[in-house]
Every structure is written in C-alpha cells, then in structure tokens.
C-alpha cells in the first residue's frame, strides 16, 4: 500500500509568527509559479531563438524562487517548535508540499499562458513590477534579502527589456498581433492591481525596513507601462477593470488555475514521499 503523507499542518501556517516567512514565501512563490508557466513553452516556442529566451527567463525565475525558499527554510529551521514531525524544512518541501491556500503568489503569475501575446504581456507586467520591487529590496535591512534582490535585479532588467520589446513589436506589428495584444490586455489587466495592494506581511516588512512601500512604486509602474503601451500603439484606458473582491493571491485566495499547476508540479513528491531525487 502506498504510504499517505498525513502531515496535517504545513510547518509555516502560523501567521502570528512574524512577517518574515510569509514575506519570503510570497517572493519565492511568485517566481516559482511564473517560472513554471514560462517553462511550459520550452520546446513549443514560436521561433527557436524565442524558445530559448522564454526558457531562460523561466530558469532565472526558478533560480530566484530557490534563493528565497532556501532562505525561508533556514529561517523556519531556526525555530525547532515550528518544524513538524522533526522534519527539516527544505526548498523542496516548501515548493512541493504546500497546498494552494498556502501559496502566496499574485494571481497574475498563475494565469494560463494563452497565446504568445498573453505570455508576453504577463511577463511585461510582472517584470516591470519586479524591476521596481528589487530596486527597493536591494536596500533591505535584511542583508540576505538585499543580496538575493541585487542578483535578481540584474536578471529582471533583461526580462523587462525583452518583454517590453515584444509588447512594442506585437502592438505595432500586424493587425492580428495588435488585436491579440488587446485581448491579452482584456484578460490580464484585472490582475495588475493586486501587485500593489500590500498583504499584512508586506506592510510589516515595510515597517521594519525589510520590505518596501508598494504604493510608492505603483505610479512609477503605471507611468512606464503607459510609455511602453504608447510606443506599442496600445490603448491604456483598458486597464481600469477591477478584480473580484474575494480573490487575493498574496493571502492564499487564488483562481482555479493554481490547483492544476500544483497537481502537476507536486505529483512526484506526493506520489513518492520522503525520497531523494
């Protein structure tokens, strides 16, 4: 008979234990889920050079996720009472053994790839956000967060350049590519507001100088986004749609998409628990 993993509590569920863990997990989950989505393109890209580019971005994002998970695991393992069944927490237990309600990624990153226009727009919205985020986090009071962010900022600068160029190319390319970008804007713009609504742990992190004030980067994000849209001949007035109030990925309230991502991503660790790979 297969052994069922009966761990009832994930080791990091208690929100009263401080902002650091959820804050780190939020940063890691964002990167992992978008990296996962982008990696679905590997081998199926519209042209070989771009297949390589999107896989490269996937790889960078998974690297960022690993850095944040490893740091989160280290923090969690410093408190033995937080560790369930005397099992050490690892980057893999954090990625593969939590369910959707414990994932703290933004809703934007879990949305399906759709066509190349949707994938590009999702990357552009997110990379633009990450570029301001890591610019701020490089100065974090937490040295490790600052160091990870400094490395990530360099990668994100490339992701942003690449995705901005593609937004412009598709927006100002053919009628079809322009229309596909409009559809992508329709589908994704409602998920952008969440990026700038701070979760409780983000407020706490900002208060302690570890995180940043997201309301300060929102206008900068909007300004840059509009500049790229203008060059791409894309309308900006489409971006006003509000998200349904009940959803808030940062606090674990996700769209249906995330469950399917996890079912696939976590399959091996769930089917063959406690194994070395």
């Amino acid at each position, binding site marked *: 008979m297969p052994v069922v993993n009966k761990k009832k509590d994930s080791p990091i569920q208690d929100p009263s234990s401080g902002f650091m863990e959820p804050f780190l997990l939020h940063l890691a989950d964002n990167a992992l889920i978008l990296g*996962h989505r982008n990696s679905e393109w590997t081998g199926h*890209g519209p042209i070989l050079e771009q297949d390589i580019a999107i896989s490269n971005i996937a790889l960078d994002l998974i690297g960022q996720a690993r850095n944040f998970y490893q740091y989160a695991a280290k923090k969690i393992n410093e408190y033995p009472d937080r560790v369930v069944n005397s099992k050490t927490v690892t980057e893999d237990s954090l990625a593969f053994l939590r369910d959707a309600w414990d994932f703290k990624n933004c809703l934007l990153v879990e949305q399906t790839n759709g066509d190349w226009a949707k994938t590009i727009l999702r990357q552009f919205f997110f990379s633009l956000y990450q570029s301001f985020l890591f610019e701020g986090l490089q100065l974090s009071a937490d040295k490790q967060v600052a160091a990870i962010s400094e490395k990530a900022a360099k990668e994100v600068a490339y992701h942003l350049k690449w995705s901005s160029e593609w937004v412009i190319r598709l927006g100002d390319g*053919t009628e079809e590519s322009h229309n596909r970008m409009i559809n992508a804007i329709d589908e994704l713009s409602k998920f952008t507001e969440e990026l700038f609504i701070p979760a409780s742990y983000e407020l706490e992190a900002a208060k302690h100088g570890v995180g940043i004030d997201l309301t300060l980067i929102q206008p900068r994000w909007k300004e840059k986004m509009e500049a790229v849209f203008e060059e791409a001949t894309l309308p900006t007035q489409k971006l006003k749609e509000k998200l349904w109030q009940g959803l808030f990925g940062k606090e674990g309230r996700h769209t249906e998409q995330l469950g399917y991502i996890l079912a696939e991503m976590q399959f*091996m660790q769930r089917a063959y628990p406690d*194994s070395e790979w």
Partner: protein
Amino acid sequence: MAEEHLERIFQDKIDEEIRIEPKDWMPDAYRKTLIRQMSQHAHSEIVGMLPEGNWITRAPSLRRKATLIAKVQDEAGHGLYLYSAAETLGITREEMIAQLHSGKAKYSSIFNYPTLTWADIGAIGWLVDGAAIMNQVPLCRASYGPYARAMIRICKEESFHQRQGFEILLTLSRGSEAQKRMCQDAINRWWWPAVMMFGPSDESSPHTAQSMQWRIKRFTNDELRQKFIDVCAEQCTILGMTIPDAELKWNPEKNHYDFGPINWEEFWNVVNGHGPCNKERLDARIKADAEGAWVRQAAFEYANKKKEKEQRKVA
C-alpha cells in the same frame, strides 16, 4: 577548370586533413550528404526537446527542474548552431524545417519513444546522450569546417548532460524500492533503442563508405556501437542494474562485449513512421510552427516599419 580536376583538389585536401570551407568548391553529392546529415542532426536536437520537455513541469525537485530546463534549452541552442552551419551550404532554416514537417527530412528515431517516468530523463541522459557523444566526438574532426566547429561546442555540453543523466539514475538506484524499479524499467525500455541509434549494421548502411572517404564519418556504425556497449556494460554495474540482453557477456578474446541480436524490424518500423510517438512528435513541431506564424509575421512587419522610419529620419 575541369570538374575532374576540381574533384581531385578537393579529395587531396580531405586526404591531407585540410578543412573544406563554405566558399570552397565541393562535389554536389558532398554538399547534399552534408545537408542531409546536418539538417537531420539539427532536427534531432529540436524534436529531442519534446520527450524531455515533457517532464519539466513534473520534475521532482527544484534543482532537477532547473537542470532539466537548462538541458532542454541547450538542445535548442545545438539546433541553432547546426541550422546555421547547414545554411552555409545554401539552404535556409525555413526550407529545412519545411522538409522536417513534410516528412522528407528525418530525425533520430530515438525521440519517437515516450518518456513515461522521471527515470526516463536519467536514461535519456545516460544512454541517448551517451550514444550521441560516441557518434559526435569523431564529427569534431569532420572535413566540413562549419560542421566540425559546431560539433566541438555541442560535444562539450553533451558530455555534461550525459553525466547529469547518469547521476539521476545513480540517485534512483540508491533510493526506495519504487525508485529502483523505475530505474530498471527505464533502462529496459531505452537500452535497445539507444543501441539502434548507431544506425543499420555496416553491411546495410548505404552511405558509410562514401562518408568515410569524405571524412565526414571516421568510424563505422558497428564500430561505434561496439564501443558504446562496452562502456555502458561497465557503467551499469555501478548502478547495480541489469542491461536487458541475456547474451551480453565479456569476450576476452575479442576484448569486447558480445551482445544479442538487434531487432532491425523494430528499427525500420520506427524510422518509417510507425514508432510509438512519431505522429505526436511531428504534430507538436507542426503545431508550434503554425501557432508561431503570426508572431514571426508581426516581428517581420515591425522590423520593416522601424527600418522605414529610420530611413525617413536619415532622408
């Protein structure tokens, strides 16, 4: 200059191990052989991304996931070098891809087998990349310069992939019962297809003699196959697994392993389109190409618009 004379100069260069470069005169048949072989090789890299890419989203750890993405991305890079090298012979990448999609050009049959478990990713690295390296290392000295130079880069990365694959299997072989079972099952399914990767035996290989005279090939299919079997038989003992060939046995007189008969019927069936995944692999490539058409068109139109704008600025 008479064709006969040019041909003699060409063969002299080859015999003296002087590389043939794109602008040099070469016999048509040499050019055709190279286009066939190099495009087939490029297509194999690209189609080969599919069975491995199949496990990226299910890789069992973050480290394995990252390594696998990097590996599949390397294959795409190899495809790029090889298409570029083949383009120096006067064919475009688009033409080569069209030949792949129409079925005119082939790719390595090994990628028509399915990846059913995580262990298959290890087995592909160990056996398939291992066989590819045996084939490809001599190609680093192929007579055609651009091909030889592309192969030098490719071989460096392939040997890295092969070690990673072996390491995946080694980890499984030291793991739980289920992991050991997974490991043996993958070796059972991939062994014979890997052995067949060296192509038909020498007596039924139509291109070998000419390719050897042109120094595109340096060893025969059977020589390379024997070398591969000798190496793998030893490596398999480190894994504590069994190679699925009851006749595999060290022969001290020959200084080689003896091995059982190869199922050439299966080989030709898969080559001729009747393998387990021929249709899926080709369909996936055709779909990616068709769905990417509007993207390529948009990039093309945008580049033209930009060029026009700049020209207007200059004027």
